[in-house]
């Protein structure tokens, strides 16, 4: 009976694990089945590097959107990562307890707010501010980057903070005992020791930024063109799907799935490299 | 070195972690109803030896072993031996107190509740077992009014006696103690030592003392190990007053270790 239960419990856990991950295969399979025929028809090179997206005329080129995704994500990373790491240092080291008790739930709340609300807030405040002070239409790469930077903050802050707090106390005490200032200790002992966690946080944050759809739909302007400056409107891979999926059919719908394939491949490449980096760190 | 009357007989025992050999060709007999102390400096393979006796070393994937360990004449690694049954017969107390994050009572009742024979028993039978175990571990008087308090609320010494009681509740035959008093104050240490001396009539006790004085105080027989090898084994008085090996006398007189 005990033996049986033992075997059974392991089998059940294994079955659950197996079915959880089989959805990855399922997702890959179905999105590729739906999208690959169109890529084959248009030609992979023309699809990825084509400059013209005109579903009505059967022209499917997504290069401007790839540029859009990359530029908005880069912008979000440039704005969000330093701020996020700063905040995690603040929470793990500098903040007094009462401040921490406000900050932590606040960051939790920030993580839970629907992305559409961020997008809407950006539309009402960030977009007009950019239009009035920096020029251009306001709906722009910059607006999207600002919104995404705010949205990836909770991910970066919470994971970095955890990895800072998880360090053994004697690291810090040892350094302080050598007469270092608090900041010297953070810079030369704690940040390097927590590096792998912080890198993981950054990669996860970037992944979130590339994948975000609804918030950026509202603030990017969504025009299909290669942007000339950060004040130009762009369309990303995700927003392309989000905007047109509602009414697309036939080849057009297939093209959106093909866009999904490109997004999927980019994300998977990012995942694999992230896993490779963290695994090497462990060894 | 082993005789048929031994409770545990270790024969030609070798133990490896990956490529590193931590126990070399050990032959040792542990007699029943005695306190058997295994002494030696750090990295002598003593913890590994104790954990081999109830196959806790199996949990490590890097471990590999050769030779035999016989409990009542039967190899504990024989295919038909149930490892859970073995661990109930050979209990262990670790070098740091390891209460589970539940109440004092639940900690003591944890083992009996796993056991088929006692699982069906009702609450009052379980409390009987728990009380007896706590009394044997000299903890009953201190906790009887707060059995439902979290075990973590006890002091370190009380926690360690709770861990001893938890093992006793299973009514084992052998009790292994791996430096059980290493982090404890002298009073708690004395209480544990007193309980051990009282318990030895009913159990076979193998202890790795945290210092030589403790070995002298509690043990009937002593084995001295160094770098994974058995150097000397004998009755308490013989080893202390008349060590056969120079290294033993160096260790006992505090020249190293």
């Amino acid at each position, binding site marked *: 009976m005990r033996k049986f239960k033992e075997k059974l419990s392991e089998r059940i856990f294994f079955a659950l694990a197996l079915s959880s991950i089989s959805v990855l295969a399922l997702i890959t399979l179905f999105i590729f089945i739906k999208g690959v025929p169109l890529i084959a028809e248009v030609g992979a090179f023309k699809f990825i590097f084509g400059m013209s997206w005109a579903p009505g005329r059967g022209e499917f080129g997504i290069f401007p959107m790839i540029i859009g995704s990359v530029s908005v994500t880069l912008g979000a990373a440039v704005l969000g990562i330093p701020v996020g790491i700063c905040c995690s240092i603040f929470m793990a080291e500098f903040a007094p307890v009462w401040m921490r008790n406000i*900050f932590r739930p606040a960051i939790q709340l920030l993580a839970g707010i629907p992305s*559409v609300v961020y997008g809407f807030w950006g539309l009402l405040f960030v977009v007009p501010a950019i239009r009035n002070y920096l020029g251009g239409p306001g709906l722009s790469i910059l607006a999207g980057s600002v919104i995404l930077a705010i949205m990836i903050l909770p991910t970066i802050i919470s994971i970095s903070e955890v990895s800072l707090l998880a360090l053994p106390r004697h690291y810090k005490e040892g350094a302080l005992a050598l007469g270092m200032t608090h900041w010297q200790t953070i810079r030369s002992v704690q940040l390097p020791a927590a590096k792998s966690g912080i890198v993981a946080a950054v990669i996860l944050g970037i992944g979130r930024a590339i994948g975000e759809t609804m918030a950026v739909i509202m603030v990017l302007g969504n025009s299909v063109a290669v942007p000339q400056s950060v004040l130009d409107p762009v369309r990303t891979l995700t927003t392309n799907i989000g905007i047109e999926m509602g009414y697309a059919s036939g080849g057009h719908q297939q093209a959106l799935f093909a866009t999904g394939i490109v997004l999927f491949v980019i994300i998977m490449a990012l995942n694999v490299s992230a896993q490779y980096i963290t695994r090497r760190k462990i060894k | 070195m082993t005789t048929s009357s031994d409770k545990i007989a270790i024969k030609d025992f070798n133990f490896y972690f990956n490529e590193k050999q931590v126990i070399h060709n050990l032959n040792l007999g542990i007699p029943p109803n005695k306190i058997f102390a295994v002494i030696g400096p750090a990295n002598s393979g003593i913890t590994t030896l104790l954990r081999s006796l109830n196959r806790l070393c199996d949990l490590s994937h890097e471990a590999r072993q050769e030779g035999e360990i016989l409990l009542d004449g039967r190899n504990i690694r024989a295919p038909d031996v149930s490892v859970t049954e073995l661990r109930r017969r050979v209990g262990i107390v670790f070098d740091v107190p390891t209460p*589970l994050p539940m109440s004092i009572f639940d900690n003591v009742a944890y083992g009996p509740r*796993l056991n088929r024979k006692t699982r069906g028993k009702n609450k009052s039978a379980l409390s009987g077992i728990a009380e007896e175990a706590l009394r044997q571990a000299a903890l009953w008087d201190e906790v009887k009014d707060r059995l439902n308090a979290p075990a973590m609320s006890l002091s370190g010494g009380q926690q360690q006696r709770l861990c001893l009681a938890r093992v006793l509740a299973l009514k084992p035959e052998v009790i292994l103690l791996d430096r059980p008093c290493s982090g404890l104050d002298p009073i708690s240490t004395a209480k544990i030592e007193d309980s051990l001396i009282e318990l030895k009539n009913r159990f076979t006790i193998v202890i790795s003392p945290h210092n030589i004085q403790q070995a002298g105080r509690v043990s009937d027989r002593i084995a001295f190990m160094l770098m994974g090898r058995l150097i000397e084994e004998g009755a308490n008085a013989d080893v202390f007053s008349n060590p056969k090996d120079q290294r033993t006398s160096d260790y006992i007189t505090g020249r190293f270790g």
Partner: protein
Amino acid sequence: MKPTKPPPRRFNFRGFKPREIKPQTVEKIVKGFVWSVALMVIAVLISIVVFILYKGLPVINWGFLTEIPRKMGREGGISSAIAGTLLVTAVAVFIAMPFGIGTAFYLAEYTRGNTVTRVIRFSAESLAGIPSIVYGLFGFIFFVMYLNLGWSVLSGGLTLAIMILPTIIRTSEEAIRSVPNTYREVGFSLGGTKWQTIRGAVAPSAVRGIANGVILSVGRSVAETAAVVLTAGSALRMPASLSSPARTMAVHFYILATEGISMENAYGTAAILIILIFFINIVANTLINRFVAKGR
């Protein structure tokens, strides 16, 4: 002993000495900088929340909560959107929970570093990175079209279940792994089998972390828009069963706000969403604190 010579200065060009800023001064500057960044972030957060609540709270009344939307949402309340959110989230969490927690236990307790486990871990981590819109595409083609479930609570819930699976797996695995190894050793040393040890010694200590992960994923489901709009649809009617289409609050907000149907009702919906998220967080935190108090 000879006195050792001090090492040569790195910068000693013709007697020029770089002005060194005292570490204590650097400390002050850095502290000021970090404080101001943190306060700025807090200010942005508060401005978002306060703005939505300021605009939204006046809209909320009993009718807003209990009435069906009328005229595309221009009038009436949002009761069907509330129901849609609750239903879709419930389906997602109840389906994802057993799979996610089971997978986490398998990964944390049973893995042996062989190929199968490497594949499972790789897939679980990859799932975590997939954008929600891709989940939406998959849910649309698989649940809505291929399994012919149509735009429905069930399609939406199943899609969200897959989306939150990695969150549950990751947080649960983390919680299980952070249970001290001594608990496992104690469990085994008292003669427990693996299953008994997991259930009796490991799981109770991991519960709070697991619950936290589940609640996090509830929050994610409530807030998700892209994946839901493609799989649950955006019907305004009250969902009658699991197979009827539904509109969640996040989708409702999006449609109201972007199509300019009714700003007031959009603000009201957003305010309720934020209050709901706030409430979920409070539940999560009290749950955690209670388990912490109980465990120690």
